[in-house]
């Protein structure tokens, strides 16, 4: 079991990255359609998009930390 440790941690990170991956995709897709609809608000939308990405990313980052701890 000890020899499998590394592999399990990698799989754990992979699983942790699925949700945020989909989430970031949704955030960016909405941001792009918002920018396309209102190009004059692009600056504000971009800032908000980065914020959304940052919050969504949190889970993936926790997974990354656990990968090192495990």
């Amino acid at each position, binding site marked *: 079991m000890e020899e499998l440790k590394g592999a399990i*941690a990698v799989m754990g990170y992979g699983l942790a990255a699925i949700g945020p991956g989909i989430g970031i995709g949704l955030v960016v897709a909405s941001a792009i359609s918002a920018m396309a609809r209102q190009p004059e608000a692009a600056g504000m939308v971009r800032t908000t998009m980065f914020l959304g990405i940052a919050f969504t990313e949190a889970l993936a980052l926790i997974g990354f*930390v656990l*990968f*090192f*701890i*495990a």
Partner: protein
Amino acid sequence: MLSMLTQVLFLFAEPAPISEPATEEGGIQLLLPHPDELIAGLIAFIIIFFFVWKWAVPALNKTLEARQAKIRAEYEAAEAAKVEAESLLGDYREQVAGAQDEATAIVDEARVAGEQVKADIVARAEAEAEQIKSRASDEIEGERERVAGELRREVADLSITVAEKVVEANLDDDMQRQLVDRYIDELGGVH
């Protein structure tokens, strides 16, 4: 070649001990802050912060304010210059319009004066011509009278001469006729 490039690539890198057995909790070591680096990082950041706070931001603000002031001053100067130029332009327009009126008036006046002068000259010339004409006809008249008077006097003289000659010579008819003819011839020679 390879060793040279290697040395360039890892100029600062200390060769890490190779093939050291991996420690049990290797991963967590990467995640924990190293105290030396933490202290160095915080000191470096605080130095940067004070530099930015005390020097960089005021410097940029001063530059921007100076630039703003200069642009504003230049803008205002340009605005003033524009107003001045516009008033000058108005003045010049007025002046030009006045000058045009004046020129028209002068030309009109000159034309009127010219007409007058022309009329004067024509009238004077006419009067002079009239005068010359009348003087010439007077002269002609006088000449004629003088000639007529002279002629009369001469005719009288001739008549007297003829009479004297007639009286002087006893005359026969033939001679008389001859005399008269000669007289007439003389008369014709005079004329």
